[in-house]
Each structure stands twice: as C-alpha cells, then as structure tokens.
C-alpha cells in the first residue's frame, strides 16, 4: 500500500506516564513499528484496553482507541469487529486485567475466535494499584496484600489458550523489541484470535521478575514447527531456567473466525450499510 502516513512517528500519542525503565516502553515502540511496517494507517487500527498501566497504551498511540473498564478489554473489541470488519482490532492490556478481572472474557473470546490480536503485558503484578499479586505472580512472592507470599499457583495463559483452541499462541519479552515486533506483525496478520503474552518487567513493584531475571531466561524458539500443537503445549508449560519465546502455535489451516460465520457480516461492514425503517413494514406480517 505504501501509505505515506504510516511512519512510526505517525502513531505517537500522549506522553507516557510510565516509570522510567518500565518494560511498557518497548511494547509501545514495537507496536508502533509493527503497525508502520504493516502499513496500517492510524484511522484503520483500533486499540482496545482495560485499566492498568498497560491499558494506558491507547493514549500513548495515535490510532482509534477504546480505553474501557478494568477487565473488560475484549468484549468491546468483539463488538467493534461486529460493527466494522474493516477495522484492525488490537487488544492491549495487563495480566491482571486479562487473566484476573477479565478471565471469563479471555476464555470465551478464544472460543468465539474473532479476528483480533491480543497483547497481554504480563508483568506478573498489579502495577497501577501499586503491587498486589496478579494471577501470574509467582508463588511465594510477598506483597502488602500477600504478606505471607502468594499461595496460589500462577495462571498459565499459554496452556489455557491452547486448551481453549486458540489458533495463534505466542510469548515474547519486551526486552527483545525486534522479535516482539515481528511476532506482533504475525499476530495482527493472523486471521482469528491471536494471543501474545509479553513478559514485561515492572521495575517498581516486581522485584522478583526483573529485567535481568527475564533476560537470563528467555530463549527465542529455533527450529520449532509452530503447526505442532503437541510440541506447543509442551513449550507452553516451560517456565524456569529457560523460557521459550516466539510463536509457539499457529494453526496451519486457521478455523473459521466468528465474523466469517455470521451471515450478516459478509460483504460491506455493517456500519456502512444504509437503512430505512419504512421499508420494514412487512416485518409485522407474521403477526397478522
């Protein structure tokens, strides 16, 4: 397309209020670059988010944005896809937002399989509310609300996504920004629901999973066949000295999306179709 208004700078929004050194900066940068490289102009992209540090993304970008409620980033994204299948919809929010408050939408959106990319800034903590455990916090991590340490085992997002039948499942690290950008591009281009769980250091509150902690552990996948579901499931469970990053799973023949199965959504986007109530008079014939 070569649209001239798709340089990374064209996606610049408000100045970020994140802490210096926060992993979110790189996610922002990767996303701006990914959109630029995919030549998706700002007015054709929609960023949906919930509430949290990660969820401020739509403010720091210039695209369309729906910054909704905590935990509720996915449903508006699905609604927007129904309204306008021409929009490139990206959901970008926190781990607490997505796997905690929003857990039910996470699961059922995967079942629904709308065509959207889902980027979870997983800092394994509640950042904005100052450091309580999130569903992905490590067992034993101490916080003000969990002074004896987190008791619950972490929520395994990749394994759950695979079990729910997601067609695209990836893990990235905000510290490897080019790799992240490339995976983002693949996720955005994937026809259907695509999850990228992004390991993101919270330099202020997560003193356990620091930049170095991640950096020392993440290993980019090599020679992995992303069509291998079984191997993907195995890799999804890997968490420890080595954490594989990259596209764990990409369906070879992506299953039908939500939108493609709805008759009313074929053809022109709903939002552009004309309407005249007067023409519907015959609706009441069945009641005669």
């Amino acid at each position, binding site marked *: 397309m070569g649209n001239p208004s798709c340089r990374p700078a064209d996606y610049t929004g408000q100045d970020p209020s994140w802490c210096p050194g926060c992993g979110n900066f790189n996610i922002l940068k990767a996303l701006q670059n990914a959109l630029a490289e995919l030549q998706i102009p*700002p*007015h054709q992209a929609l960023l949906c988010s919930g509430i949290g540090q990660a969820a401020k993304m739509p403010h720091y970008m210039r*695209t*369309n944005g729906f910054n909704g409620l905590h935990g509720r980033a*996915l449903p508006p994204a699905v609604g927007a896809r*129904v309204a306008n299948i021409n929009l490139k919809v990206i959901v970008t929010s926190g781990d607490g937002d997505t796997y905690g408050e929003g857990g039910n939408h996470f699961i059922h959106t995967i079942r629904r399989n709308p065509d959207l990319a889902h980027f979870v800034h997983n800092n394994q903590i509640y950042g904005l509310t100052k450091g309580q455990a999130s569903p992905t916090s490590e067992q034993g991590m101490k916080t003000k609300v969990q002074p004896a340490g987190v008791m619950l085992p972490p929520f395994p997002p990749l394994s759950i996504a695979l079990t729910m039948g997601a067609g695209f499942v990836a893990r990235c690290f905000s510290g490897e920004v080019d790799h992240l950008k490339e995976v983002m591009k693949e996720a955005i281009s994937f026809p259907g629901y695509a999850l990228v769980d992004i390991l993101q250091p919270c330099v202020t509150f997560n003193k356990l999973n620091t930049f170095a902690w991640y950096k020392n552990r993440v290993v980019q996948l090599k020679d992995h066949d992303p069509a291998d579901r079984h191997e993907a499931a195995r890799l999804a469970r890997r968490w420890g000295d080595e954490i594989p990053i990259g596209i764990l799973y990409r369906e070879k023949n992506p299953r039908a999306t939500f939108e493609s199965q709805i008759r009313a959504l074929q053809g022109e986007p709903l*939002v552009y179709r004309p309407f005249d109530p007067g023409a519907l008079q015959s609706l*009441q014939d069945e*009641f005669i």
Partner: protein
Amino acid sequence: MDINIVIGGAAGQGLETIAYLLSKSLVRMGYGVRTSRDYMSRVRGGHNFSRLRISADSPMAAAEQIDILVALNEETYDLHRDFLTANGRVIYDPDSFSLPESESRGTPVQLQALAQEAGGAIMSNTVATGAVLVLLGMDTAAAEKLLVEEFTGKEGVAESNIAALKAGYQAASKTCSACFELPAQNRKPASQIFLEGNEALGMAALASGCRFLSAYPMTPSTGIMDYLAGKQGAYDVVVEQAEDEIAAINMALGASYAGVRSMTSTSGGGFALMTEGLSLAGMTETPLVIILSMRPGPATGLPTRTEQGDLDFSLYGGHGEFARAVLSATSLEDAFYRLNKAFDLAEKYQIPVIFLSDQDFADTSRSLAPYDFARLRYDRHLLETWESRPRYQRYTFTENGLSPRAFPGQFPGETVLADSDEHDEDGHIIEDAETRKKMVNKRLARLELLAAEMDEPLHYGAHEPDLLLVGWGSTYGALREAVDILALKGNNVALLHFSDLWPFPAKTLTELLPRVHKSFCVENNATGQLAKLIKGQTGLSLDHHILKYDGRPFLPADIVREVKIHG
C-alpha cells in the same frame, strides 16, 4: 359483552397452544383479544394459566371473572372456581377428575381419550381448543388454518390435530353450543396484528436500525433475543449470546462506539452486573439502549413473575454522575414507537437510555392495528462531513455539551479515542481540576435538552378530576380500565400515566395534583418508587399508595377496590 377465558394446567400440558389457537383465530376474524400468561419458574408441572379476554375493541386489561375455565387438571378448577360467573362453563376431562356434585357448570370432554383416538394424547390441548370454540359459537375453520400453517412440512401432524380439534368441538357441542355471545366484530378480518410485548420490542429495535444485540438469557427479557435471533438470516442484524451480562453490555458499547446502533436486554440481576458498563457509557458518551425487563426481586426472586421494582435502580444505577434517560413500556401501541425514541435519544444525546419493561408487558399479547413504520425516526446524529480542521476530537467542548460524534475509520486520517478515565477533548487521560470540571459540566449539560424531549404523562379521564390515579409503565391498561369503572360508578376521576420517567416530566403533575381532592400512586412494587421520584423532584406527596408486590399484575378490580376504601 366481553368474554373471559382462563386456561390452566401444569407446565408442559400445552396451555399456550390453546391460548394461541383461540386468540389468533379470534383476532383474524376481527375481534379484540388480550392474552396474558401466569407461569411458574419450571418447565414441567406446577400450576400455570393463561387469561384470554375477548372484546369488541382490544382489551387493555384482564378481568377477574371467568366465563370459560379450561381446567386441564383439578388444581385449576380449585384455584379458579370462585371467579367463575354464574353462567360460566368449566371444560374438563371427566376421566382425569370429577367436579363436585354441586357444580352445574361442567362441560365434560374426554380430552385424553379423544386425543388418543385422533392420534396421540399429546393433542389433548387441541381437543380442548375445539371445545372452547363451540362454546363461543365459532366454527373450526380459522383454527384449522392455523394448525396447517403451524405444522407445514410435518407429515400428518396437521391432519391429526384437526381431527382432535373437531372431536373436541363435537363432544362439547353435546352439552352446550354457543353458550356465549361474542362481542361485536369491530375490525375487518385479517386487519389486526397480534403480538406480545417482547415481540413488539424486538421488532421495534430491528425497525429502528438496531444491528447488534448482545445479551445473556434472562427471563422475562429472553423473548426479545429470540425475536431478533430469528431475524438474523434475513436482516442486517447480529445477535450474540454473551458469556455473561458484563460482556453483553461491553460488547454492545464496543459496537456502538464503532458506529452501529446497539442494544442489550436483561432483567434486574443482569442489569446489576451491567451498571459498571452503564457508567462507562456515561463517561465515554457512547449511545446505548438497555431494555430492563423487570421481575420481582431482590436477587433471583420470582423469575417468571412481574414487578415494577427497579425504577430506583434504573435512575441511580452506575457509579458517578452522568446523564441518562429512562423510558417505560405502557401499551403495546406506544412501546413500539417509544423504543424507537430510546434509540433516537441515545444517539442524539450520546447517552445510555434505559427502557423499562416487565414480565407482564413482555408476555402479554393483544390485537392491534398494524404499526406505521413510516413514523419511526432514523437519524444517526453523527458528524457528517469533515473539513480538515487541525484534528478530530471526540470530546470537543461545545455550547450545549454535545461533541460531534464520528466513528473509527469514518474520516481517513482522523482517529477516535473513547476513554473511561477523565479526559481532555482528545479523549486523553487528564487529572487537572479545570478540565475535570469542564468535562463534568459538559456531560451533565445535556440533561436540560433531554428534559425538553420527555413526554408529559398521558392524561386519561376527567379534565378536572376529584380523584387522580398516577401510574407508570405496564399498569396502564389496568389503570385505564379502573378509571372507566370508577367513572361509570359516578366518580370524577382521571389517570396520569408516565411513559417517560427521566428526566422527570413534572409539569402536568405539578399543575394537576394540587387541584385534586384525593390522589393515588399505583405501583407494582412495595415501596412506591414513582411516588418517591415525584416527591424528590417536585416536593409533592400523593395521598395514598396502592401497591401490589406479590408478583402478579394488577387487575382493574384490585385498583377499584383500593380506591373505594381510601377514596
């Protein structure tokens, strides 16, 4: 004279089919018919019944007395016998139970046995239908046609049902034929529509250009979903059953933000889960229609029964302060156009609009003149063109507080940002006191414009009444008839009935109330929520509260009785 029929039995005995066949036959012939349902929250067994009333004009309310009682089981007879008129008839199956010796009004029909003969016990209800037809002095032609329509494609089913129908007709004609004289046949054949509240609302939504309903099933709202879901193939509408009510409202908001008219429907418990999203609609200025179909609470309450218990909640649900409108369903005639108004207001003022229905309205059918679809408004109130000003801002400050609304992608190069935090004109997060204040003012300013759109309550009856009844929503029919009855008995009486509730249209009431001798606020709830609203908005109190909160709708007689006691 009106004829009142009650058809009662257990869930699963096919009461609704009897009611449907009778009602629809009568409506097609040009009679006025009203059919309401009283059913339990179970799928089989228990005691359910339908009330069917036949008048020259479409009856606005049910009556207490019963002319024909179709008692599919003994319980039905026991529960309703006291209301049977002296000349009434009870259709029952003598093989199933017998009436007391003293009961002279029996019309025994071997429902089961005859059905069996015709092809299966399951058609007992069709047999009973035939029996009613003969008592009404009708032939079976219309009902036969309905059976054919109903069972097209199912081999032999229509035929055996017709046989059952005729057998019932035959059997009952032995005891009595045309015992009842039907009222005048005021309408031309096939000139009326007959539909229930949920169907009217579903059709109104579709004809208002609603293209997305996301909802979660909840009695008594589910019929709206059923209606719209059934239209999905043929019309530009998408119905999505959400995983929960939170998803439902947030999906609808996403679709509305992205530019299509959207709606959600639910009952009280689901609405509770939606109140955070309601507040989000207020903050983001995203248009949304929410149909809140009330049932008795608190909590699960009585799922299949009726109440007007969520007015307070619809007025004040959601955290923080924002503009909203609350409208309600009164008659089927009005509700169709009023839901259209809800869609119009939602987009004109960029607000959530709550439309209050309830089980009584949702499940009651009446014969009506067809709707005039040309009366429906369809103006999207969107920004239409974009001259290249510096940039589009979703929350531009304007004099009346309404920022021109565009949807994402509408104008190449321009972006649209909706924000749940306090924000500036761009939609970006802010925290400064000055912008906050201006944004609050902006969001609330529209309340004044909105107030001017509210319809005053309908004034029915005497112009300068001594007795004034005040009501809202689905009680309209019962109240109107109560006024008629009281007027007939020589009272100088009127009704003020509210459809639009918020912003509260106080003018007519404020003028009239101080001039009346005695006033009654009539509500299907226990705490008098409209009366509270009136007092809070006008400082005026009504003299008496007539409240019913047993889960059943008002009958005109209930109201008349109370007015007599206190009037």
